[in-house]
């Protein structure tokens, strides 16, 4: 494989991994914040419905 092709494939894979990572952990943090909110309030917060 030429270095140019390798560089392109590597950059693409890495960007996909980094964006996927951001989405995955973004959702986990959001869910955690929602559960925290639910544990502190008497009414059911809206975010629980979308979990």
């Amino acid at each position, binding site marked *: *494989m030429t*270095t140019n092709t*390798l560089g392109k494939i*590597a950059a693409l*894979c890495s960007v996909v*991994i*980094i964006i996927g990572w951001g989405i*995955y952990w973004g959702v986990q943090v959001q869910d955690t914040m929602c559960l925290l909110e639910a544990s502190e309030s008497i009414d059911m917060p809206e975010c629980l419905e979308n979990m």
Partner: protein
Amino acid sequence: MDIVFIFEWLDASWLSDLARTSAGLFSMVQAVHILSMIMLCGMIILGDLRMLNVVLTGVPSAVIIQNTKKWIYIGLAGIILSGIYESSAIAMKLATNSFFWAKMAGLAMGIIFMLSVRSAVYSRAPEVIGSNGSQSDPVDAWVVKLVAVAHLFIWFSVAANGRWIGFS
């Protein structure tokens, strides 16, 4: 594909009986799991941070990558074997646990990415990163750094999801 039968088999095995009845042995295997993770992730972090020009910048990167390889494999062997033992105690919980599956997906991705992209890119690192002497046809430095960050992110997720199994 239904692979629940693997978990049912593990759950009914003698390994599972042993894991459930001997708390002392279980805690020792847990220690092996964590120590293997330290070995595995320690060596990975060393190589990736070297490529980001953060640690051991006076040592040629090829020397670091070459010398950490064996210890990465030893760490992987230790963590997979101890992981199977730990799994046998809670096999039926794991079969439907999303964090366990996220961890396994991350582990597979980490191993494939490490052996393919990371290894090919690092061996063609430019002189500004590698200090291996001049390369005839190097990969751009920013690509090497992007690969290092992506690789660190994958293993972070494997470790964090591993710990999350216990909380879920």
